[in-house]
């Protein structure tokens, strides 16, 4: 229990920080800094961007998933991986790829375009997974009762897809609210950029904290909305019986379908990748300086440490959540989930403020950076481990104990091997997230600690596209294998 409590306690840091900064500012200043025209502007910008991107991702993710999973489109086996691959390119690299070639992409439309291309796989993945596992019997029934294919899709398939669609869509929303790096090149002001500008102009200041409060409010709306909607989900009895279904014949729609899929893949993959390749070519071997390699080494190292740490801490919490559902474990999970949906910028601001004033010994240490990673990525890890545990039968553990094996022997010889895929997935997810993490690393990292992401960011800031290219290439290079490992391991975990 103590550990679960500890996790919950640490997770409360961002929430506590919000309350503390409100009290510290006092009602007068807080009101003046929250209710001002600039905040209205940012609210409109951020709101529009979030809603538009969520809609666009839903449309794109659902459309692509239907084409790939439900029709006889040419090259189904190739489209699947290609549509997931954009997850291996961080949004701030995608924006660099586009903007350094087409400088006119900016503002709301540009940001919506780039973020949609970067995040639509978050919808595509769960929806494609759901389409594969839906028992076709329902739809066949509907068809045999004389419904047309469109009507049967709307009234039978779509409701079954709703959990996957909603989950993916809200995940996109949370990502958009937390996005920061991409906006530097896209010239678009959102809460994250405004908070960072306040940070640059006055370090941890009241004005920045007040902006953070509004952003936290936006995130809460999404998280609470998700929670309320998820309670209405239809429970699935059994896993259904997925069978190979007769795909819809596209006929003369084949060409447009292929064109649509190609457009998406070109926008999300080909443009960023070829742009990175172009700048790499322009720089030649001279850009591969030793700072590139030391940043790469630092990135891999911190990624591995964080993956190990978060996984080890997520396991007991997940174990309790699955095997001993109770008030405490449920609360722990909710709280950590809440913290995990907070933008990294808010968490970093909270940790900077707390450590500089009250926890000097861990200020600017790797420990604090790891705490930030823990807060940010624990929920992701828990989701994966839970999924793994839920699939391993509790009866096997009971049998082991019944045969007189001690608890830890059971844990070591039965539970862990059964949960291994979920644990490995969790570790890979955290590793992937840390290697491309920007804000926390920027604000909390020890002096002299530079990762691929932070170096890349400072170089693109001075529009040195050539020198930035190797960092982008390495980030993608690290992400691609991990992403595909994840895909192979579990096609369901990634989406949530």
């Amino acid at each position, binding site marked *: 229990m103590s550990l679960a409590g500890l996790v919950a306690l640490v997770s409360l840091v961002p929430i506590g920080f919000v309350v503390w900064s409100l009290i510290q500012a006092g009602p007068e200043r807080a009101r003046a800094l929250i209710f001002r025209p600039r905040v209205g502007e940012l609210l409109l910008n951020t709101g529009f961007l979030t809603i538009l991107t969520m809609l666009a991702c839903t449309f794109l993710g659902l459309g692509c998933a239907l084409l790939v999973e439900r029709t006889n489109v040419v090259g189904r086996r190739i489209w699947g991986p290609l549509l997931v691959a954009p997850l291996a390119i961080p949004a701030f690299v995608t924006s660099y790829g586009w903007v350094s070639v087409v400088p006119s992409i900016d503002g709301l439309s540009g940001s919506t375009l780039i973020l949609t291309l970067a995040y639509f796989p978050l919808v595509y993945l769960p929806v494609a997974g759901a389409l594969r596992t839906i028992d076709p019997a329902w739809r066949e029934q509907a068809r045999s009762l004389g419904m047309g294919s469109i009507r049967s899709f709307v009234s039978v398939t779509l409701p079954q897809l709703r959990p996957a669609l909603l989950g993916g869509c809200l995940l996109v929303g949370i990502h958009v609210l937390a996005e920061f790096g991409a906006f530097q090149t896209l010239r678009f002001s959102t809460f994250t950029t405004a908070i960072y500008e306040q940070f640059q102009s006055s370090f941890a200041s009241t004005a920045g904290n007040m902006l953070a409060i509004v952003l936290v409010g936006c995130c809460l709306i999404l998280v609470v909305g998700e929670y309320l909607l998820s309670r209405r989900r239809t429970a699935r009895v059994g896993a259904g019986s997925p069978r190979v279904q007769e795909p819809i014949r596209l006929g003369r729609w084949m060409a447009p379908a292929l064109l649509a899929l190609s457009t998406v893949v070109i926008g999300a993959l080909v443009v960023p990748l070829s742009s990175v390749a172009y700048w790499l070519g322009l720089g030649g071997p001279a850009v591969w*300086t030793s700072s590139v390699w030391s940043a790469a080494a630092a990135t891999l190292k911190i990624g591995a440490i964080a993956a190990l740490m978060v996984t080890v801490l997520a396991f007991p919490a997940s174990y309790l959540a699955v095997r001993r559902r109770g008030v405490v474990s449920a609360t722990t999970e909710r709280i950590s989930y809440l913290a995990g949906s907070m933008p990294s910028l808010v968490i970093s601001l909270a940790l900077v403020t707390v450590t500089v004033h009250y926890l000097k010994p861990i200020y*600017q240490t790797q420990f604090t950076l790891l705490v930030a990673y823990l807060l940010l990525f624990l929920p992701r890890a828990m989701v994966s481990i839970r999924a793994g545990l839920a699939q391993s039968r509790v009866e096997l553990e009971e049998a082991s104990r019944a045969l007189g094996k001690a608890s830890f022997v059971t844990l070591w010889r039965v539970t862990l091997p059964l949960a291994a895929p979920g644990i490995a997935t969790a570790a890979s997810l955290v590793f992937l997230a840390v290697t491309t993490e920007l804000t926390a690393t920027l604000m909390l990292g020890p002096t*002299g600690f530079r990762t691929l992401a932070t170096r890349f960011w400072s170089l693109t800031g001075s529009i040195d596209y050539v020198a930035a290219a190797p960092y982008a290439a390495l980030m993608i290079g690290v992400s691609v294998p991990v992403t595909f490992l994840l895909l192979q391991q579990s096609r369901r975990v990634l989406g949530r």
Partner: protein
Amino acid sequence: MFTKRHLVLVTSSITALVVLAACGSTSTPAAQGGSGSNTSNAPTASGAAPTDEEQPLDPSALVIYNAQHENLTQAWADEFSKENGGVKVQLRNGSDLEMANQIVAEGADSPADVFITENSPGMNLVEQAGLFAPVDPGTTSQIPAQYSPSTGKWVGVAARSTVFVYNTSKLTQAQLPKSLIDLADPAWKGRWAASPSGADFQAIISALYELKGADATKTWLTAMKNDAAIYKGNSTVMKAVNAGEVDGGVIYHYYWYGDQAKTKENSSNTALHFFGNQDPGAFVSVSGAGVLASSDKKELAQKFLKFLTSKKGQEIVANNVLEYPLADITSETNKALKPLSSLEAPVVDPASLNSVAVTDLMTEVGLL
């Protein structure tokens, strides 16, 4: 049941703590950044590769909180290290006011030994908090007196001039603004750009504030909020002017000269307009360096400042980023620049520049 559950928890907690403890004591390779902004021959990192067992904050290293361009400070650090038997120098990079406020928040426990900025307001903030040790007189005397505060708490190390960069196909000489103040005129709506979130622009505003007072500054900023195109970063402003997205922009001189010296890809369609005439727009901003009173390496830190203001240190300024060196040196690279003495800059005491008033005003009008 209870005990078993406890076992599970205890085992994993212990593992977790061991891991955490291990992390706390592990280290990171201090990335000694080579300059990335010189693509044709990027200098390689200095010195020997740091070992893996090095602490993130090497206790023997001189820690610089650096708000100057990373490649300039890195070049200084590399040369200083070479001249002083390979002494380690570590940079923490940020922007002027972020780091100044950070040092103030850190107070007496600041890990920084030296603080270097691009502009003066950040230096004043730290000075007013009483956190600087006096600079050695032998160091201050290497720089003309007007570029350092009379208090002797920090020293000027370089200077940059405010300029109006304009697109030559969009504006003729006659159409150029006579004064920075003119840009508040509705005629300029949507035609000029700046980067208000940067310390550079905020320093220009602090000069405006000092020269024209709070009300005039607020009026001007309000006009800017409504009329100017906002970009992030001076390079980006220049790029936009070059691409014809706007007619002109307020930046510092060396961004333009630097691009001209390299590929010209972001400045080929542009020219510089110096306001001159003691206009706020002719403001020359002084970069400063100071030694933290809380430093336990004051001697080394003072030595570093002496090096920055020496002939060698000032040549690095001239050759590395095309900012103006302040010591009297002659440099081939610098000959391309309009001489510092001919800029007709307004007389502003670097020590009088107030950052807090400026950021508050900018927040008030909604630029921040």
